[in-house]
């Protein structure tokens, strides 16, 4: 039956979505196609009549089905908490900030910066600092910019300890497996996709000289 065929077809599509491919994690096809602010155009709506097929054109590459706005229905508040947790860098149903001339249909939940695919916030702690900071890794093109930003952000805390030498500190991060790694070993793109949080440690600790804190 045509109906049954289309169910099988749907399954095949899902298989394709989970197939293994070569390539570094985080260096996949582009995050998202610029999907329209709302869902499929009138042309594809015809596909809905009587046929239970996916609404996207079949020509779409397997793993990158055009994401539909607002589906699955999870509040962006909740989604934005798990950006890093998701193993893929693509962001579901972005709120695309497509600004038209008449500033009309800007389909955006207010935390557009966080929920849209355009940011990757991680927490940064520094030993001895009173509270954490959050930075958006996507703001930086590479390690040098990142390090400069961190220095600008955190050096103020150690100001009263006299002159601060940035090389006294080691920047580490916790990756997806929970391991503590030194920042700078892997390509920046890979770092972005595996970094869960960062920690700036005093140099002596980073060299592994005991676990006692100062």
């Amino acid at each position, binding site marked *: 039956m045509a109906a049954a065929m289309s169910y099988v077809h*749907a399954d095949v599509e899902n298989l394709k979505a989970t197939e293994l491919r070569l390539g570094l994690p985080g260096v996949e096809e582009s995050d998202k196609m610029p999907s329209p602010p709302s869902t499929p155009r009138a042309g594809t709506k015809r596909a809905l009549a009587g046929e*239970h097929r996916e609404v996207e054109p079949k020509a779409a590459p397997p793993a990158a089905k055009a994401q539909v706005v607002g589906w699955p229905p999870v*509040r962006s508040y*909740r989604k934005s908490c798990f950006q890093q947790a*998701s193993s893929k860098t693509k962001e579901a149903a972005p*709120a695309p900030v497509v600004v038209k001339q*008449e500033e*009309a249909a800007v*389909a955006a939940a*207010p935390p557009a910066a966080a929920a849209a695919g355009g940011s990757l916030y991680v927490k940064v702690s520094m030993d001895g600092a009173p509270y954490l900071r959050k930075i958006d890794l996507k703001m930086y093109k590479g390690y040098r910019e990142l390090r400069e930003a961190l220095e600008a952000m955190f050096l103020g805390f150690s100001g009263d300890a006299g002159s601060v030498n940035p090389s006294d500190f080691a920047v580490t991060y916790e990756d997806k497996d929970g391991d503590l790694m030194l920042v700078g070993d892997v390509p920046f793109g890979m770092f972005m996709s595996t970094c869960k949080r960062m920690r700036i440690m005093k140099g002596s600790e980073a060299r592994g000289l005991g676990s006692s804190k100062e």
Partner: protein
Amino acid sequence: ASLSPPPPRHMSAPPSSSPSPAPIPQPAATLAPAGMRGAAAEDSSGSPPSRMSEDDDDGDGAGGGDRWAPDLRGCGNGGGGGGRWAPPDQVLENVLESVLEFLTAARDRNAASLVCRSWYRAEAQTRRELFIGNCYAVSPRRAVERFGGVRAVVLKGKPRFADFSLVPHGWGANVSPWVAALGPAYPRLERICLKRMTVSDDELALIPKSFPLFKELSLVCCDGFTTRGLAVIAEGCRHLRVLDLTEDYFHEEESEVVDWISKFPECSTSLESLVFDCVSVPFNFEALEALVARSPALRRLRVNDHVSIEQLRRLMARAPHLTHLGTGSFRSEPGPGGALSVSELATSFAASRSLVCLSGFLDANAAYLPAIYQVCANLTSLNFSFAGLTDEEFIPVIRHCVNLRTLWVLDTVGDEGLRAVAETCSNLRELRVFPLDATEDSEGSVSDIGLQAISEGCRKLESILYFCQRMTNAAVIAMSENCPDLLVFRLCIMGRHRPDRITGAPMDEGFGAIVMNCKRLTRLSVSGLLTDKAFAYIGGHGKLIKTLSVAFAGNSDMSLQHVFEGCTRLQKLEVRDSPFGDKGLLSGLNYFYNMRFFWMNSCRLTVKGCGDVAQQMPNLVVEVMKENEGEMDTVDKLYLYRSLAGPREDAPSFVNIL
């Protein structure tokens, strides 16, 4: 100038609602247009504004505190209708008001207000909580003119699909006209609860200025304010008991953050509840610790993810009587003394003998979970929905939670984790399983297996929200049979149009069984591959359904027709991406006045069809939004709602009111 004798002493009685009296037939002009029963004051249907169902605050209800002397203004205006005005019987009014004080449920009050003019007036003066389910359904002026003695206001703004980025930015639901009207009218206002509204800092600043007795502010899914506004509230509302910020949208530059916590009064405060887990910016922890220490009535505290385990411990030491705790990050940020040990943390929890509700775990280190074992047996509510726990991490915890009634988790706990829930939590009433990876083609870690297990173990289940990738009719049918008390059934099969994973059939039978067997069902969200048959079932059996959410479902307009003709209690209908057109829309013509709203996006509506509806229904506001200019006749988004206020004046350019 009041004409009444000194008011009788308020008798204490349970604030439960008494059965409404039989309406007395009246030849006089009706007080509201036919079919618009109490549009300004509807019964609170749907989900309660608070985040956890446990925490639903019933509010002031039957007026406590000082009695309100009857105010005789407002007869005739606000209610419409002419007819002769007869001088009121003052004694009768006093007696009536005393009696009506005991009515709290809005539905009962609405009924009472329709009996006759006397009752209308008496009810209008004694209504303490004003519930407005759609801020555009009535003008602030009209509401304020009718109700004289309001102490609490609940306002809801944007349609729920705004949560999923379907309502363009700038659509509306600004609180400013309301604040402007409430201020002068209700100087004794104590409580404001807003949901999905835009609130600016300046509007927040009006609260302490206008309401010297202000006690409770609750903002749910709101946006537009910053820590600057919070600072004004903290500083200005000297009698503040509740400040609950739940899932609001905070978008503040860290450099602009204001130290609002320090602004609370220096002396002992009357704070009972402080919830700010969504205010995800750094704050002054020492100030919070001091605040908690001088707030002896504090029972609910939910902090944001900038609070470490070490800091949490300090807070708990200051507030040993907490009943609801949001644990912050639940992760160690070791200070000079080193990282906290699990046993040290366990001591803190053991000392909190009153804890019944735990949430937070916003960045949890699962190694610390054993610290909460001691309180698990007392917990009635647990929210792990921000902690990506595996089944191995989750199961040992849940095994202790034998008295749980509400559980929110992530699907990372898997079917195995749900099985453990089923085996342990026989008293469970509400379950929500959220997806870690909310995309259509994600792996999905829970399935029909987990749902089946839950249905077998948690027979008293009343509310379920379940995100998954694989489902079968059999499991849904099993749930319908095992859990007949279900009030809320929301199943989200994330892949669109997905059929039964085993049989390949549509999910019609599963949802059909739900509406057939769960006779108390009031809220339903459907998903998966669905034909018109499913909607025939829903219309045929879903007689108590008030809220229905439909996405990527149905074959034809018959689906909508089934729903409109069958679901006689339907109040809120939201539809997206389904093959329904003008014909389906028109099949609802006779029912729209009984509903709060109807939302439809990305279907097959035309401007003409929507215009026909607008033309035939004068008290309906029909808003259409179009994304692209190309196809002039199609409608991308339709939002229609009954209203006494007529077309709103603050509609942005992308909204066309027909």
